[in-house]
């Protein structure tokens, strides 16, 4: 017998499915082997490869924090072949999971600092793991004020509504801002795009780290605002998305310059990103 | 090839036009006429929908013969 291949997934079972928006579902997944689940060791910001047998594999960020229990959550938008099939799955069905892959948010470096999370659309998923991590009873004391700014096209497109409106606002020293792109009946919150809302809130860069994730166009304009607000490049952290097949730095497609997003990323500070060629 | 053996049951893929052959096969069913299950019927909106690549693909996937009818 030879060693198990790193390309072989662990069998896992879907234990819960939450409809977030019209095309996003959050799957709670538990790896069947309790020992493997126990030692999975995912850190906030890491990704995993999900197998839907018959369709292949897809790289999905782990949206749950390890502090919340021995399970994994994946928020998946229905965009392609595999995700279409995954969306038809029911609780109890089996998928494959391998990972965790990639680096994680520099939560050690963030200790003692205020955190400002900015996300748009589905992109709240990868940073939700870090939000839950710093808001956990265990680690909340290590971090300063936590502010979360989240925007989507409409109310229906807001993911994790329970977290946004119930769970997170109740946490100590935590503020949640939500915005939608266009006014809507029944919505009395902020209306407008994420970058302009950031400018409105006008966060001070003092002792603060901003964690930004969203569609490229949102990132582009938000970074311009952050620069205006005098955030330094190493105060801004983001996480990237790339097509991946192996997740372990061999299949050669997720490179940005000589860095592989799957093992050197997906988390980069803006300072690090500026060292890389603009090919993402 | 096992074509010579007596109990050879060919797999036939039939691409049938919605408006004639498929309707005919349907009528045969409604009229309780029996035909061997060797033909796997695939309904197409028109036999013009059948691309040569469908035929090739059927052979590649193990069909013994392909029927295009319309």
């Amino acid at each position: 017998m030879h060693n198990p291949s790193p390309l072989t997934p662990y069998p896992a079972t879907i234990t819960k499915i939450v409809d977030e928006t019209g095309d996003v579902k959050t799957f709670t997944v538990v790896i069947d082997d309790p020992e493997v689940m126990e030692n999975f060791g995912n850190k906030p910001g890491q990704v995993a490869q999900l197998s839907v047998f018959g369709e292949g594999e897809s790289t999905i960020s782990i949206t749950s924090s390890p502090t919340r229990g021995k399970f994994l959550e994946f928020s998946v938008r229905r965009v392609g072949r595999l995700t279409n099939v995954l969306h038809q799955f029911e609780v109890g069905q089996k998928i494959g999971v391998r990972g965790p892959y990639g680096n994680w948010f520099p939560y050690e470096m963030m200790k003692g600092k205020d955190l400002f999370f900015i996300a748009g659309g589905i992109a709240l998923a990868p940073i939700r793991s870090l939000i839950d991590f710093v808001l956990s009873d265990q680690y909340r004391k290590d971090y300063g004020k936590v502010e979360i700014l989240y925007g989507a096209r409409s109310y229906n497109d807001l993911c994790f509504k329970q977290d946004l409106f119930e769970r997170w606002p109740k946490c100590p020293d935590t503020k949640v801002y939500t915005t939608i792109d266009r006014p809507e009946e029944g919505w009395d919150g902020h209306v407008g795009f994420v970058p302009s809302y950031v400018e409105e809130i006008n966060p001070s860069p003092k002792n603060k780290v901003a964690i930004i994730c969203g569609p490229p166009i949102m990132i582009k304009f938000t970074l311009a605002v952050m620069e205006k607000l005098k955030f330094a490049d190493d105060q801004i952290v983001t996480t990237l998305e790339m097509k991946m097949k192996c997740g372990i730095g061999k299949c050669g497609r997720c490179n940005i310059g000589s860095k592989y997003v799957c093992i050197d990323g997906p988390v980069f500070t803006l300072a690090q990103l500026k060292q890389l060629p603009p090919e993402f | 090839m096992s074509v010579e053996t007596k109990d050879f049951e060919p797999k036939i893929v039939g691409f049938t036009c919605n408006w004639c052959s498929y309707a005919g096969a349907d009528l045969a069913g409604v009229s309780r006429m029996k035909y061997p299950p060797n033909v796997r019927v695939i309904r197409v909106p028109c036999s013009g929908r059948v691309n040569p690549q469908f035929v090739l693909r059927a052979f590649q996937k193990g069909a013994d013969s392909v029927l295009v009818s319309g």
Partner: protein
Amino acid sequence: MDSRVVNKGQLPELLDKLARDHILVAPVREEENITLFKRVSGASEVQLDYITSDVSPKGWIFPQTEKTLSYTYTGDTLEMKEPDAPPKTILFGVRPCDVRSILALDPVFEGKFLDTFYLERRKNTVIIGLSCKTILSTCFCTAFNSGPCDGTGADLMFTELGDKYYVEVNTEKGKSLVEAYSQYFLKEDTEKLAKAKEEQAKKLEGQFTRKVDLDGVKKVLDENFELPYWEKVFRKCLGCGICTYVCPTCHCFDIFDYTTGEFTGNRFRCWDSCMFPDFTLMAGGHNPRPSRKERVRNRFMHKLKYHMDRYNLDGCVGCGRCIAKCPVNIDITQIIKDLKEVGQNA
């Protein structure tokens, strides 16, 4: 290490024996002009006088199509099975550039995540190198501190000298093969042959027509990602995968499932090419390398810079296949030359 001698007349017998006892893979002529590494059943099939194979032998360690998993999946139940370990294989007649390429692939599949498929094959393969006798106009291995008789990386290195093969035994794997077939591997005084080999290597090195100097090229690429030069190169590229599929150091692959029945299927990994548009195309529609310009640049950056950055090894071995096979004459040595010039003018 050790060295031996195989009489030329006895080589067919040795190859016959190796083919009988193991899986023997050697250069085989197909059609008029094509040489490929294939499994042979005896010496008569082996094309000993080949110059270079049209496709590199890397496929015997990193196959173009490889099953990584078979599964039975009903939705509620799941069973997975990994394929059996690969059998012991002897790769005979590998040219120095191709041996070198395997050394360039090793660190890709090693590292934090050990790629068992590659490493098992690598472990179970004995590589018998064969020194070149003819230098093609496309050859430029000397640019990478290698040469037509360079045995680095081969378990055994054969060099034809007169009516004898001078055999260098470079590794333990090679040694045990020599011991198992000791009647063919003669213990003679090889000092003269070693010298003759040196001379032959020198002579052959003088025959290279492509003088490639890599000095400063990496620096140009380190400092410049955007170069107007790439605009010039990519226009003629057809976007086919020839260069990547014949390349001995290209290692990109795709993973996908292939269903074989209602509940069963296999997972495969297959060579993929960075020259194809869907290589980096994400399900959402975004493609970080949307045009041939980015893809061509990425390929040459990978060969001349990225591989060096990651593994401190050259990503090219100078086999010249991409030069010979490219339908539009995109020539990596020309690109190296041009980049140098770009650097000097900057």
